[in-house]
């Protein structure tokens, strides 16, 4: 029996089989796990400035929708992902802006501006946000995300800094 110094032939064979099996299993199993989770470990960082248009053409106190597309290389293919948001000009001043992301903070659907009722509506679970992005009703846990880094270039174009790591 195992443990005594006189191990019999059958137990020796069983033990050896189990040991070799474990080594083979581990030497394939551990890389296999790395293989499966590999794409999740890659960091895709975005860092770019996108142009929304001339600042003077954006109306005051009314959400101005914009969208942009970022191209990413995922594995063997380039994938275009669309993002969007709203620029809200509070006054004529260049830095008196609120720039909201259109991604609902609940589960990631796109919110739309409803002119009649002055709210952003998320079509998925009927959430509503006010013009500053605060939650008025529905399940979202926090206000709409904002882009805080923006600038106006020499030609009057509003540029927004898109950053994600």
């Amino acid at each position, binding site marked *: 029996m195992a443990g005594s110094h006189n191990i019999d032939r059958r137990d020796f064979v069983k033990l050896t089989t189990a040991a070799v099996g474990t080594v083979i299993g581990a030497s*394939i199993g551990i*890389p*296999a796990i*790395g*293989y*499966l989770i*590999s*794409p999740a*470990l890659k960091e895709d960082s975005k860092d770019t400035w996108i142009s929304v248009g001339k600042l003077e053409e954006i109306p005051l106190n009314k959400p101005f929708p914009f969208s942009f597309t970022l191209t990413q290389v995922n*594995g*063997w*293919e380039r994938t275009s992902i669309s993002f969007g948001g709203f620029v809200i000009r509070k006054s004529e001043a260049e830095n008196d802006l609120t720039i909201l992301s259109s991604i609902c903070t609940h589960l990631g659907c796109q919110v739309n501006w409803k002119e009649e009722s002055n709210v952003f509506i998320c079509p998925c679970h009927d959430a509503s946000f006010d013009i500053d992005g605060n939650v008025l009703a529905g399940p979202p846990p926090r206000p709409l995300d904002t882009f805080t880094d923006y600038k106006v270039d020499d030609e009057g174009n509003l540029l927004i800094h898109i950053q994600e790591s």
Partner: protein
Amino acid sequence: MWKKIYEWLDERLGLNSIYKATLDRPEPRGNWWNTLGSASLFLFILQGITGIFLTVYYTPSPDHAYDSIQYIMTGVSFGWLIRGIHHWGASLMVLIVFIHMLRVFITASYKYPRELTWLVGVGLLLVTVFMGFTGYLLPWNQKAFWATTVGTQIAGSVPVIGEFILKVLRGGSSLSALTLQRFFAAHIWILPAMLVGLIAVHLYLIMKHGESQFPEKED
């Protein structure tokens, strides 16, 4: 504790009798040549596992087949290892299965009452070779493309129905996306299903009849 759990399970599943029937069978005097069948089975399981892992990234489309394999080789952790095992395991499996057949032939183990084991084994050898043939196309590189052009052309040289066989294999008269897709389907679904079925019969017959005695000098 473990003993109690094991006994509870054994009483309901009959683990001991399964173990006795499958792994604790009486054998003739041990011989390394008798391990080639088990080696083939091991390789089949290894090919199955690595193959399943490859399908996580591989795309059977002419646009992406080659790129997805490049990605497996360079972009995925241990992708080179998983594909390497599958690649070399395939060659090794054909080799081992063939030597296994030679051993059975040389020791005349195919005789009564094991004729069916031999016949099923012939089927296993053929399906194994088809696995190799269909898998060879999947990287969709020059070598794969022309090897399949030639291979299907050979099948097409059969008199009268050759043209039809060629079209069935290729999914049309020329090598195309359809060929790649149907070779992929054959490689991961149809042929493995056949292999599993044939292996089950093969193993049942071996357990039923036991291993054959090695021939003595007088035989």
